């Protein structure tokens, strides 16, 4: 919501196409703009109301549904096709990957903000057509940047019966990263705001953490490249046609 609020107030933005499936819940109240009395309502509708109250001339189009749901695919595709740029502020990798696929499919630039657990820092990524995809960046991020020094999970309790520890970030950390995410997004508009920005990833430590970040705000620029053999954005041409037919042929050839 923070990045949406910051972008939505910019007078150069005349239309926002918003995809948000969640319902506003009591645990959201501490880190959102809406009052507790609005719990139970759709976040997309609350966000649209917030924006319209501040900029009545802003056009806001909503999809209060799941980005990845195939029932929404036609509407999502039409929204993406009409957009100049994309903004992703979700916290699950599947939705990020799906968004990346849509952006590449429609040759749109996009930005992504990620706040690290505990609010110790965050990432702001800028993706452009023909640049590295989300999987390229994640692949390099796994090996080149260490942002988590926690011990491995307890495999003595398999089956995910013990939830992974997750420390919520403070609203200050969320807003710090959201502000930089909004700046990166506005940089995509070009003109003065785009000066000095390029398609890369920035790691922004918001506090010192032993063995990870020496100092707060000592931003690290991560010029990730497109992986020449990335299976996500540089795949070879596979078999033509229907997937079920391809599966049937594969099983016939397997001869079992």
């Amino acid at each position, binding site marked *: 919501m923070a990045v949406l609020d910051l972008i939505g107030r910019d007078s150069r933005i005349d239309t926002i196409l918003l995809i948000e499936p969640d319902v506003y819940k009591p645990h959201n109240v501490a880190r959102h703009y809406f009052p507790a009395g609005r719990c139970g309502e759709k976040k997309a509708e609350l966000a649209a109301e917030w924006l319209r109250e501040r900029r009545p001339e802003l056009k806001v189009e909503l999809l209060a549904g799941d980005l990845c749901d195939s029932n929404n695919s036609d509407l999502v595709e039409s929204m993406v096709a009409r957009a100049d740029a994309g903004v992703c502020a979700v916290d699950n*990798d599947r939705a990020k990957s799906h968004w990346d*696929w849509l952006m590449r499919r429609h040759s749109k630039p996009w930005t992504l903000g990620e706040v690290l657990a505990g609010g110790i820092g965050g990432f702001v990524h800028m993706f452009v057509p023909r640049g590295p995809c989300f999987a390229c960046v994640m*692949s390099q991020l796994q090996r080149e940047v260490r942002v988590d020094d926690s011990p491995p999970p307890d495999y003595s309790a*398999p089956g995910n019966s013990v939830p992974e520890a997750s420390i919520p970030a403070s609203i200050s950390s969320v807003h710090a990263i959201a502000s930089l995410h909004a700046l990166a997004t506005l940089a995509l508009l070009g003109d003065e705001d785009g000066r000095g920005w390029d398609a890369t990833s920035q790691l922004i430590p918001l506090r010192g953490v032993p063995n990870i970040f020496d100092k707060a705000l000592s931003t690290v620029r991560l010029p990730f490249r497109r992986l020449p053999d990335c299976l996500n954005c540089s795949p070879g041409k*596979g078999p033509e046609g229907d997937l079920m037919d*391809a*599966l049937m042929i594969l099983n016939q050839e*397997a001869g079992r």
Partner: protein
Amino acid sequence: MGILDNPVSKERLLNVELPAIQAYNNQRDSEYRVTVEPKGGELHLKYRLKPAHNCYELLTILSESYPVVAPTTRVLTKLQQCPHLLYQQTLCLWKQGSRLADSRWDPARFTTVFAIQAAWRWLACYEIWMVEKAWPMPEAR
């Protein structure tokens, strides 16, 4: 929604995974080839591996979130309880954490054939563990 309804997964299956499995199958005798079956919104890959003298039946499951989420591999042949073996004989291969940044699984570089090869390596370690009672890869965690 299942893996076959997800356009991202469908594109990946057609362009990357099925050609990789076909290439894998072309290099193997029929009893060691992989078959693929849609089941409950997932794709189930069934195959046999023989890393040493014992043959194992395996099942690798691609969930609706594949390839963002790593495949899970279970050994259907009864195993002894051993290190790096999870619930329902699921192999502990790369699940360091639930997010991409914490997982050894890398969708930009790995295919399901890599997962099959990782299972083969796990079973080779298991064969050694059966004799030595020590997992041969101390760096595994």
